């Protein structure tokens, strides 16, 4: 019985699942704590899937469904690229490609006080951190990390911003370094910011380099690691 239970637990991990699939049976798990990530929900004793994707498991007992989508859903502690769409007396309204606009308080900057409120034009691209994302409320952002330092957050000047899916953003941010970024970094100098909401910002000395990097990243979504390196090499040969 226990062997069968163990095999049934690992049966669906790393497989593609559809909405409605039951992936866990809580009545068979005694004194165990599991953590449910995105794409899963509890229905009495059964854990079922809400979004199509690939079921993942990481020790100890973390389950989530890994997928890629265009619409971003805000979660706390995500780093995202936002566009300022309005400024009020207390908040900047920032578009982070979520269901609603997000609030960026004017004091949520390093050393922010009432005397030195930063002045953002409408349309400014900023790298921010999501600190609150509750359903039914507008998400709240911050331009500092958890310890209050500006770290890598703030406005991004110049450069070029394009959009991709959230799965590709996670791939670009994964460690070890994504093959396309690794291959590009060997030949070109550029600066890049990747938001988990599917926005990527690239800046380089010349627009030519910026366009090459952006096109390479956009083309790499459906390629494997080796294919990405080959694609980058071909692209670099063509421009030299």
């Amino acid at each position, binding site marked *: 019985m226990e062997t069968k239970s163990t095999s049934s637990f690992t049966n*669906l991990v790393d497989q593609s699942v*559809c*909405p*409605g699939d*039951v992936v866990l049976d809580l009545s068979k798990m005694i004194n165990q704590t599991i953590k449910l990530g995105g794409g899963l929900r509890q229905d009495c004793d059964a854990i079922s899937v*809400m*979004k*199509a994707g690939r079921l993942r498991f990481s020790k100890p007992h973390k389950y989530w469904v890994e997928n890629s*989508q*265009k619409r971003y859903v805000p979660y706390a502690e995500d780093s995202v690229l936002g566009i300022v769409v309005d400024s009020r007396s207390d908040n900047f309204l920032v578009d982070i490609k979520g269901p609603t606009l997000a609030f960026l308080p004017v004091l949520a900057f390093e050393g922010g006080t009432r005397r030195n409120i930063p002045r953002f034009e409408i349309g400014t691209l900023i790298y921010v951190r999501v600190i609150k994302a509750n359903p039914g409320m507008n998400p709240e952002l911050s331009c500092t990390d958890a310890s209050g330092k500006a770290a890598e957050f703030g406005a991004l000047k110049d450069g070029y911003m394009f959009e991709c899916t959230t799965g590709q953003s996670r791939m670009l941010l994964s460690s070890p370094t994504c093959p396309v970024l690794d291959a590009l970094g060997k030949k070109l100098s550029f600066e890049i910011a990747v938001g988990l909401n599917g926005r990527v910002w690239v800046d380089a000395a010349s627009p030519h380099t910026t366009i090459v990097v952006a096109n390479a990243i956009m083309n790499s979504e459906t390629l494997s690691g080796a294919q990405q390196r080959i694609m980058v090499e071909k692209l670099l040969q063509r421009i030299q």
Partner: protein
Amino acid sequence: METDRPDSQTPNQLRPLACSCSCSILHRSHGSASWAQRETKVLAAVYGPKAGTKKNENPKKASIKVIWKPKTGQIGKVEKEYEMILKRTLESICIRTIYPNTTTLVIVQIVHDDGVLLPCAINAACVALVDARIPLKHLVVAICCSITDSGCIILDPTKDQEEKMKAFINLVFPNTIVSVLPEGSLQEGSETMAHGIMTSITQGAMS
């Protein structure tokens, strides 16, 4: 009892399906799907969830708005009815408590109509919702059955065959799920949903 079909298919044979679903169909939508059952073809796009709800909607739940676009002309009474049926079916499969006070827009464009238009649209909309990663309870599968004068049931009729039939029934079922639960306990818990019919619409004389 045998009935000859002009397209040489058996009575319970479905027409060939073609389904494509990816970001490359429609770039601006958050999810899109193209569903074809031989000649009949439907293109579905999903936008959202977006903030806000209509005036007469419940802001505590996510609402779904369906727009049915016929191939030519304006929508008439039949298309209005299809739109309403599609909206009710999609509302029943979506988990609407996760994104309150939002609206998800589903646009269904008819590319070609050769019979079984409503089941084709339901299948396309369901695949588009999956592509947009809208939280769903389960998937749905739609099928059209037609009944001849002699009482024979034919699945997936063409438009020419529809004109000779006595009655039709459009059925929508939940999909078969992969489960780690034993078979018996699943039936105990959700027998009505797992094995039942979600939507049933009949036309003509049905005994």
